[in-house]
C-alpha cells in the first residue's frame, strides 16, 4: 500500500517538475550571485528572520509593519533589479533563439571594418552597435532614424567630428544602419581601465544589457575595441575585427 501511495504522490511527472523548479531556483541563485544581489538576499533573509521572531513573540505592531512592507518590498525588488532582470530575460531569449531575422552579411562586416580602419588611422571616435537576436530599441535613447545601407562613407560621415550625428552610437540592424546618435546605457563595471571614457563604457553597457556587439574606435588613440557580453576585447587590428565579427554574427565558426 505504501508503495502504491508513494507512486501516486510522486510520479515521473513530479520528478520532472521538481527538477524544472530546481533549475529555476538555481537560475535565481546564480543570478543573485552574479549580480551581487546576494547582499540584498541576505538583507531579505535577515528581515524574514526578524519578522518570524516578531510573529512568535506576538509583537503585533512590528508584525503589522512587516506585513505592510512585504508588498512594497516585492515591488522594490523588481525595481532594484530591473536592469538585471531585463538582462537575464534577454539571455534566455538569446539561448532559445530559433530564427534569425535580418542577419548581417559578410559585405556589411567588410564595410564596417573598412570604416573602422579609416577612422582608426585618423583618430575619429566611433561607436557602432550591431544588433543580434535581441532588439535594442528599448535600451537605447535619443536616436535619429536613418535606415540606410551600410557603407564606409556613411559611417565615416556620421562620426566625423563637429557634425550633428557624430556624438552617440550607430545601431546596425541586419544590413541597415537603423539609427545614429543614440545614447546607450553606461556600464558600471569596475573592470574597465581608467583610460577608457564614456564611449567604451557605453559599448560595454549595451553588451551587458543585450546580446548586441559594439565596435569602438578611440578618439584619443585610434585603438579599435570590440565589446561582447560585457567584456572589452582591446586593441584589435582590422583583420582580427573582421574575423571576430564574422564569428559573433554567425558567419563563420567560433574558434576555441
Amino acid at each position, binding site marked *: *500500500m*505504501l508503495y*502504491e*501511495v508513494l507512486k*501516486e*504522490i510522486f510520479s515521473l511527472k*513530479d520528478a520532472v*517538475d*521538481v*527538477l524544472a*523548479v*530546481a*533549475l*529555476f*531556483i*538555481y537560475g535565481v*541563485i*546564480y543570478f543573485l*550571485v552574479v549580480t551581487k544581489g546576494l547582499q540584498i538576499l541576505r538583507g531579505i533573509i535577515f528581515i524574514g528572520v526578524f519578522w518570524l521572531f516578531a510573529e512568535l513573540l506576538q509583537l503585533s505592531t512590528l508584525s503589522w509593519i512587516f506585513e505592510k512592507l512585504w508588498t512594497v518590498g516585492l515591488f522594490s525588488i523588481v525595481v532594484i533589479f530591473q536592469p538585471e532582470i531585463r538582462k537575464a530575460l534577454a539571455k534566455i531569449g538569446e539561448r532559445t533563439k530559433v530564427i534569425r531575422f535580418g542577419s548581417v552579411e559578410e559585405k556589411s562586416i567588410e564595410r564596417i571594418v573598412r570604416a573602422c580602419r579609416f577612422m582608426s588611422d585618423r583618430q575619429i571616435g566611433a561607436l557602432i552597435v550591431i544588433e543580434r537576436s535581441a532588439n535594442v530599441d528599448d535600451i537605447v535613447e535619443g536616436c535619429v532614424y536613418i535606415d540606410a545601407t551600410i557603407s564606409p562613407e556613411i559611417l565615416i560621415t556620421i562620426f566625423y567630428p563637429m557634425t550633428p550625428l557624430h556624438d552617440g552610437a550607430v545601431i546596425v540592424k541586419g544590413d541597415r544602419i537603423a539609427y545614429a546618435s543614440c545614447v546607450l546605457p553606461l556600464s558600471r563595471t569596475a573592470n574597465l581601465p581608467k583610460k577608457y571614457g564614456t564611449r567604451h563604457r557605453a559599448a560595454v553597457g549595451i553588451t551587458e544589457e543585450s546580446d548586441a556587439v559594439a565596435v569602438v574606435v578611440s578618439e584619443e588613440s585610434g585603438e579599435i575595441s570590440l565589446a561582447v557580453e560585457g567584456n572589452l576585447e582591446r586593441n584589435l587590428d582590422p583583420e582580427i575585427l573582421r574575423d571576430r565579427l564574422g564569428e559573433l554574427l554567425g558567419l563563420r565558426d567560433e574558434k576555441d
Partner: protein
Amino acid sequence: MKRIRNFLSKDIEYKIIALFLAFMLWGVVIFSSRTVVVVNRFVEVVNAKEGYEYHLKPEKVRITVSTISRLAKPRFLNGIKVYIDVKDLGAGKHRKRVYVELPIELVMKVVTIEPPSVRLRVKKKRK
C-alpha cells in the same frame, strides 16, 4: 558531453540548495492541496463473541475524510473501515462509539462521523 559534465560539476552547492528548495516547494504544493471526500460504510463488529447476535441501528455511517487531492481515488478510499468494539459486551441494549480505520493514516484525516455512535442490541443465539 563536455558541456553537460561542466554544467553538473559547476556550483554544486547552489544546485543542492536549489534541489532541496524545489523539493520542499513541491511538498508544500502537493500536501496543502487537500480535498474532502464523503463515503458511506457498513459498520463492522469487532471482537464479537460466539453465540451472540449483534443488531446495529443504523448499520451504515457517513464518514467525511480529508486527504490530499491525489489520493482521493476509489482504490485508496475503499480501504476505509468503520467498526465498533463489542469486547466484554453482554446481552442487552447498548450505544457504542464508531471508530474509523484509515488505509493511510499519515495523509488522511477523519473530519466527521455521522452518526458518531450506533445503537446496538446484543442477543444470545437460540440453540
